[in-house]
């Protein structure tokens, strides 16, 4: 029993890492007042690009880097649509999401169904050998820790720095921020590209460490759960991280429950993350004051500089 608990907790960190990267990136984007719904497509691009580059070059560093760049480029197209062409953010997010899914299949076409040696776990010496804590916390690949560090950096920047203050000002009232002299469009562009790169890293983690293979449709709805996680976390990186780890655990319950010998239809287990997301979303959204206090005021609204 203890072994399976250790296994479950350790796997939770790995399962949550793709969500963590993408959700923290999206939180920064939404803090500037932009809703980017294309996470699913951007994660898919990152997953395919990372896998192909790492397979061809043999370098995980190059794989992750190119994944981040590819998704950032796609998110730049999104930025162009919503910032320059004043497109509706929901529609633009759907468009880029569909485009990303299609392009990911094209990128990974020659590699469909192939596998790769997963990213190796770090050797942390005696730390990894500690009882219980060692296998749970200190026996992971480097990206699990990079993910945690990203959360902490984003939290620090958003809540304790001048840059964070500017980001929040842009998200609360872009016209007021522009009046003070902040470059609203530039800040939103940078946030969107950052969010894209993070979604790319999350996607690449799926194919280079978590699964580790490339197959069409491998992101499997995670991009949408990420958008929900940002709401659960009330746009705060640390809370989002907690949500991501909880979801990582939920996604593993299927294995755990089957291991215990309960006969539950596998389809119900596959639907469980979505059922839980809807339930949590409904419960959290019920409290209008909580949402209003944390929700960036200009989220989803088109900002027209000349108007």
């Amino acid at each position, binding site marked *: 029993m203890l072994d399976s608990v250790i296994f479950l907790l350790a796997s939770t960190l790995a399962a949550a890492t793709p969500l963590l990267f993408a959700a923290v990136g999206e939180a920064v984007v939404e803090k500037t007042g932009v809703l980017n719904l294309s996470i699913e497509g951007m994660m898919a691009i990152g997953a395919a690009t990372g896998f192909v580059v790492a397979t061809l070059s043999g370098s995980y560093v190059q794989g992750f880097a190119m994944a981040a760049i590819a998704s950032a480029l796609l998110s730049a197209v999104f930025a162009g649509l919503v910032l320059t062409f004043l497109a509706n953010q929901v529609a633009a997010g759907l468009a880029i999401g*569909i485009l990303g899914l*299609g392009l990911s*299949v094209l990128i990974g076409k020659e590699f469909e169904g192939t596998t790769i040696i997963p990213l190796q776990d770090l050797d942390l010496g005696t730390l990894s050998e500690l009882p219980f804590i060692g296998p749970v916390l200190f026996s992971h690949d480097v990206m699990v820790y990079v993910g945690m560090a990203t959360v902490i950096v984003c939290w620090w920047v958003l809540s304790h720095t001048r840059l964070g203050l500017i980001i929040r000002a842009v998200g609360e009232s872009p016209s007021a921020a522009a009046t003070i002299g902040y470059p609203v469009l530039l800040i939103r562009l940078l946030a969107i590209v950052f969010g894209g790169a993070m979604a790319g890293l999350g996607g690449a983690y799926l194919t280079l460490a978590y699964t580790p293979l490339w197959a069409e449709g491998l992101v499997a709805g995670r991009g949408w759960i990420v958008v*929900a996680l940002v709401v659960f976390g009330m746009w705060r990186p640390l809370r989002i991280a907690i949500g991501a780890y909880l979801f990582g655990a939920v996604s593993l319950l299927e294995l755990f429950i089957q291991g215990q010998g309960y006969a539950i239809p596998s*389809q119900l287990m596959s639907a469980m993350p979505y059922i839980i997301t809807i339930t949590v979303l409904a419960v959290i959204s019920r409290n209008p004051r909580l949402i209003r206090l944390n929700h960036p005021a200009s989220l989803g609204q088109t900002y027209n500089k000349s108007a």
Partner: protein
Amino acid sequence: MPYRLVARTEPSLRAQLLVPLAAILLTLLAGSLLFTLLGKNALDAFYAFFIEPLTTRYGIGEVLLKMGPLLLIAQGLAIGFRARVWNIGAEGQLLVGAIAAGALALHFESSDSVWLLPAMICAGTLAGAAWAGIAAWLRTSCNANEILVTFMLSSIALQLLYYLVSGPLRDPMGMSFPQSALFGDAAMFAPLMDNTRVNTSLLLALIASLVAWIFVQRSMPGFKLLVGGQAPEAARYAGFAQKRAVWIGLLIGGAAAGMAGVGEVAGPLGLLQRSISPGYGFAAIIVAFLGGLHPIGIVFAAFFMALIYVGGDMSLVSVGLPNSSTTIFQGMLLVFYLACFLFAHHRLQRIEIKR
């Protein structure tokens, strides 16, 4: 910059017609670039994609077959979209409609009643509306974002379908394939054209388009819906309820998608199986936008999107284009449409530089 963007005082009709055409043209240009990069002859690829399907009776039939569900779903979605109610889960509403109709057809397998098909249409339509109604209820009572809820519900609907076709509704004689028994003849739409797979469900889509046109352009409820979604403050002042807009927008979208699901299982499929729709529910979102959220525009957009589907299938065989071409084309279409749409509401004005 010698030019600047100026908002039009009223949207230009000419610009609104030119926007989708420009989006299609840009998609074709970007597509030819993509095909050339893939080492294909762009002209051959285009012929296979956009012309070849229309050269044979069978091809035209296939385009019309795929146009039916796209048209039906997009008309329903557009009514919601005009009111800023974002139902992106039509795929799931379609599946639930198909399941409800299929369950009825399987229960009355040996029936030859003329009422079976109408009953299936009603069951499917109601089931689709009910599935979307969950999202409407969660939005109006809990303020839960309908974009996320409708998407998640479509993933749940897919798992429900998987469960049913591999369990309760599986064909007992079917060698444990995950599919149901074949429906009886009374549960099927009649063919519409000889030597094609087009059936009378296309007429349902055309009638729905007419109803949508009357509802949107000519009725007070349609107008209230538009105002309720786009200007909640003004709507409240005028006594129109925003909650009602959410309910109506989602229920109509769900009903149309559910009906489209009936058209699939009681049309080309004739049974329940794991794959029922090649993403019609998602493609219909693009159709609704490309048609300018206007009932007449959507008819043309649905035809074009159906052509992309059939062209994608055909060019896969004849030119060896990747099977993701259809998805990429769909994405590019919406991207270019949204970019061009700026010019429906804005115009470029030359700025005189005084020396």
